[in-house]
């Protein structure tokens, strides 16, 4: 058992550009994540997913991770079993200006 961390930063205008590309959006975000198509919100989700992949040390498979928010705004993540035996302890997302950043802590069973 090991604790791993991962972090990622996303330039928000790139997500704005990606929004016009439907197939790119469809292969990155789950339907539930797309209810709010605000670029900074999606950039946060993207960064959170990427930080989880980094912590796991696996290549990204975007639809295997789902980021959701509790009513008070705290993000949480659920990952599919295909990514191996691991549990997301916590994630945190932040925005400022043109950037979104996320940080993930996971527990990896080995």
């Amino acid at each position: 058992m090991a604790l791993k961390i991962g972090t990622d930063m996303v330039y928000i205008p790139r997500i704005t550009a990606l929004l016009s590309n439907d197939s790119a959006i469809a292969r990155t975000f789950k339907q539930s994540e797309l209810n709010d198509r605000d670029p900074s919100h999606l950039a946060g989700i993207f960064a959170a997913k990427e930080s989880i992949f980094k912590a796991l040390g696996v290549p990204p498979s975007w639809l295997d991770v789902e980021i959701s928010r509790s009513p008070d705004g705290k993000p949480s993540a659920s990952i599919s079993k295909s990514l191996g035996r691991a549990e997301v302890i916590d994630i945190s997302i932040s925005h400022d200006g043109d950037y979104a950043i996320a940080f993930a802590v996971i527990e990896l069973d080995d």
Partner: protein
Amino acid sequence: MAFKTVSDLLRSFPSRGSSPCVGYRTDFRAFRFTYTQVFDKVIDMQRLLRKHKVKKGDKVIIWAQNSPSWLCAFFAISSLGAVAIPLDFRGTKDLVERVAAEVKPNFAFIGVGMPDISIDCWIERLDPVWDVSSMKGGRPAIAESAPDDLLEIIYTSGTTGIPKGVLLTNKNVMSNVAGAVKGIRLGCKDKVISLLPLSHMFEQVGGLLVPLAHGGQIVYLERLNRRSIFSAIEEERPTFIPIVPRLLDMIKHAIENEAKQSGNEHLLVRMRKISRSMPLSLRRLIFPKLCRLFSVNRFRFFISGGAPLERDTEVFFDELGLPVLQGYGLTETSPVLTFNYPKHRKIGSVGKVIYGVDMKIADDGEILVRGPNITKGYFKRPDKTKELFKEGWLATGDIGSFDEEGFLFIKGRKKDLIVTSEGMNVYPEDIESILNHIPGVKDSAVVGLRQPGGEQVHAVLLFDSDRSKGSASTIIAKANASIPSYARITGFTVWPESDFPRTTTMKVRKFKVLEYLSEKHATGARPGKIAASSPLVRIIADVTKKPIGSIRHDSNLTSDLGLGSLDRVELLANIEDAFGVGLPDEVITPKTTVRMLEKLIVSKPHSEEKIKFRPWLNSGPVRLMRVFLQDLIVFPTVVFFTRTAVHGKQNLRGLRGPFIIVCNHSSHFDTPVLLMHLPFRLREEVCPVAMWEYFKVKGKRPFKQFMMDRLYDLSGIAVNLIPFPQTAGFGQSMKYAGSLVDKGYSILVFPEGARTLDGSIHNFKDGVGMMAVNYRIPILPVRVSGLWETLPRGKFLPRMHPSTISFGAPFMVKSKDYREAAKEIEEAVRRL
């Protein structure tokens, strides 16, 4: 037939009545509008413009993707005598704002998907299609416009500098509409698929005004990727398509790829050799797969314009029996000057001078023209206008010569302008000014390098003596980041001497630079093999913003090309659009090279299980059988077990489909009870949605699967089922159901996904919202109760129990969000 103004053309619409005018294909539907419906919409838009005090001579911007509404907006503007400013939907927001600052528009139509812009006038969001039933029609008031009145101002694609607007009058454009196709028989049976932006004069004349002037039909596509273009060609059966060389290359590549995948590569080459000796009209017959795509008795020709066509491409299509008619022209000549006619054409030539146009070759070889289609000049640019004309003739800036039969051949260009294979104009000085602002660059010369696949934007760099500021490729990447994708630098060279060759006025002698470059290419000074014309390389260059020249077969995507995680998503999505191959994210590892990716694309077969739809369920005999089956067996059985009280019958009076009929799901009795209480006309055109997985047997049990298939057939005959999978393949069913909606069928949906276990209504799934948003048809809410008691889930035999059914009033969903729309619908059903 000759219309003098665009308003004259509009006046002819009512007489075309209900013949099809324009269509719009989305992922799931094909919307159609008749000439009368288009006319009514034009009048409706005209009313809106007048409300905002738009009058003769006022300027109105259109910035939107091609759509039926774009067409209506254009006609509405000119019917008031106002001036249209169509802007390329691929252009940047910045360009729109700069144009607006210059023309001071009174009104703007901006497509719904476009970004917000800040311009000082009323902005109307342009929805691609409209609800025909909401049109009021009304008394048309079409302004009397004279042929010399200004029709539109076309901004040629200026990338960064001050845009240049070409003034075009009604006479300019309409004389070209008549002159360009004189001698080609066109009529109301003709149908075009419009793929190029309507802000481009070539598409506006070839793909919009010419078909409409002959009562033909136009089809627009919501999405312009490979898959949607091919399915449009296959299903719409167009008679001709205006196209640019870039798209022709894409089709050529797709045909060759298809042959490669099925192992028929050599066969294709051999067949092409054979077909050379055959008459053109028969050639297509020996390529059976191609005949399915390009209907033998419908498809006539491609019209190619906008950029020079490679001889190879022209010959390729010619050998397949798909003639490509090449033309030549400029925005300033609205636009056609010469054209190859179907019966009189020459490969490699841009054709003969069209009716009404005068052309001569100046002593230095430059093509000079005059005629009714020539512009008056540029908007507010008297200096540029003056440069354009020479003793009453318009100087095209192109060098050309005629052969003895009068066919024109283009030899080169005098003007310092690059025309990409997409037909976009790139002004070198714009790119140079960006490059020269980057630290480390002393000066630069941007030239158009002719290469297979069209002209490349090639930058030649002159460095400061201090070269520590970064390598050439990072400088190019930096510049490309602020250049729109169509104009990006695709190759570069570092100038070996201390300065460029210059004229006495210190201007760079570009032809000397070009001479040097072509020599360098000839001697093969460049290391490594460059796959410049491969579409994959273009996609990679576009995503990574690296010059095409720096991408080699053995380039590593991650370490050499710096592919980030966001880039990877974009790259795979673009590959899916361009090649129709969906690759999972995992295929790109840190070791993946360009060549490996190319192999993956060729080897990957198209996955996803094909659902077997049953179009014959809607054929005459089956429908007749269904009436008997329902009236003699199904309904009497239902009536035996349950007596149904009906509420809200007044909501069904005089209803005309199509609808999405939405009902809660309590038992197998729902469908027959609902159908029984619908008016006969509506009932006969209802397709209930059924879970596809219900008819699928798990594991390998052929006999059971065979029986399930027959059950599917039987229930299909009884109630006309559409299978809808709950997971993969959902899109196929959405598309099939959409095609039934196009034919006027209503879809019956039980959006809870499964029958209830306890008699209560469960949450509606988002799928119904997706249908409502994409099909754009009204929802008819229905609620049943008491049927759960009659036949609950898990029971086989029904028992007697009374039931009720309530019909609500049809409504359109307000939200564009699938989940929100599903909620609206759920509430409507719960309220009943």
